[in-house]
């Protein structure tokens, strides 16, 4: 027996924890980890419903999410390295020059 509602709840909680991490933390790297957590929560939901409906489509969604996540992390880390070269800081509060 699979507790579907519980697993959906777990996925929802993980997604909201990731969103909270992105919105609340000041460190860019921890915000990136929050993004990863949100993607993982989505994959969990796809796999749960793929199992419940005995259908493989969710697995392909998960595969393509993995591809997108890999590229995303590579690009974000390249951008973070360039940002760090400019200001020597990882805090989002250091990058507010557009506000002034």
């Amino acid at each position: 027996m699979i507790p579907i509602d519980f697993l959906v709840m777990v996925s929802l909680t993980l997604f909201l924890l990731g969103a909270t991490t992105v919105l609340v933390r000041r460190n860019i790297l921890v915000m990136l980890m929050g993004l990863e957590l949100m993607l993982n929560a989505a994959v969990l939901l796809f796999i749960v419903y793929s199992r419940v409906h005995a259908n493989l489509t969710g697995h392909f969604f998960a595969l393509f999410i993995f591809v997108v996540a890999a590229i995303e992390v590579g690009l974000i880390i390249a951008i973070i390295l360039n940002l760090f070269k400019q200001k020597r800081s990882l805090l989002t509060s250091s990058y507010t020059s557009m506000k002034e």
Partner: protein
Amino acid sequence: MTPLTLIYYILGILTIIGGFSMLFAKHPMRAALSLLFVMFILAVLYALLAAPVIAVLQIIIYSGAIMTLIVFIVTLLDSKEDDLRKPYTKCVYLVTFLMFLLLLVTMNLLPPATFGNAPMVDGNIGALSKELLTNYVFHFELASVLLLVGIIGISIIRAGRGEKQ
């Protein structure tokens, strides 16, 4: 409640604990290790949910490649002492409250407790790759093009186009 259902509950609660410890970790390295923990537990959940290929790929791609990259970058760009003292922005209480509210609302929107027991789908590598190279071959090629574009983009961002050293 069968023992398998109990295992689902334990694993689910462990992932949520890992997520919370990522949110509350002061040092980025602790957050990265908590995320690694969450990813391993999720891989076990995928294996239990009849998705062994996705479980293995989760370990290889997420825990192996992505988290290694993140841990490497955390050690490379060392955080300063005073950066660690205040890890949250000013709107932390408001955002946490709103997220909690959203969680409660969506919990009430969910259907009542359901236990699925669908027939097992064949999620092994043979069935998956056969489907991937027949029905999903266009998406597969698009994903490879996306990877290529990503690699080119990363090298352009890092090399600095037209920039003389």
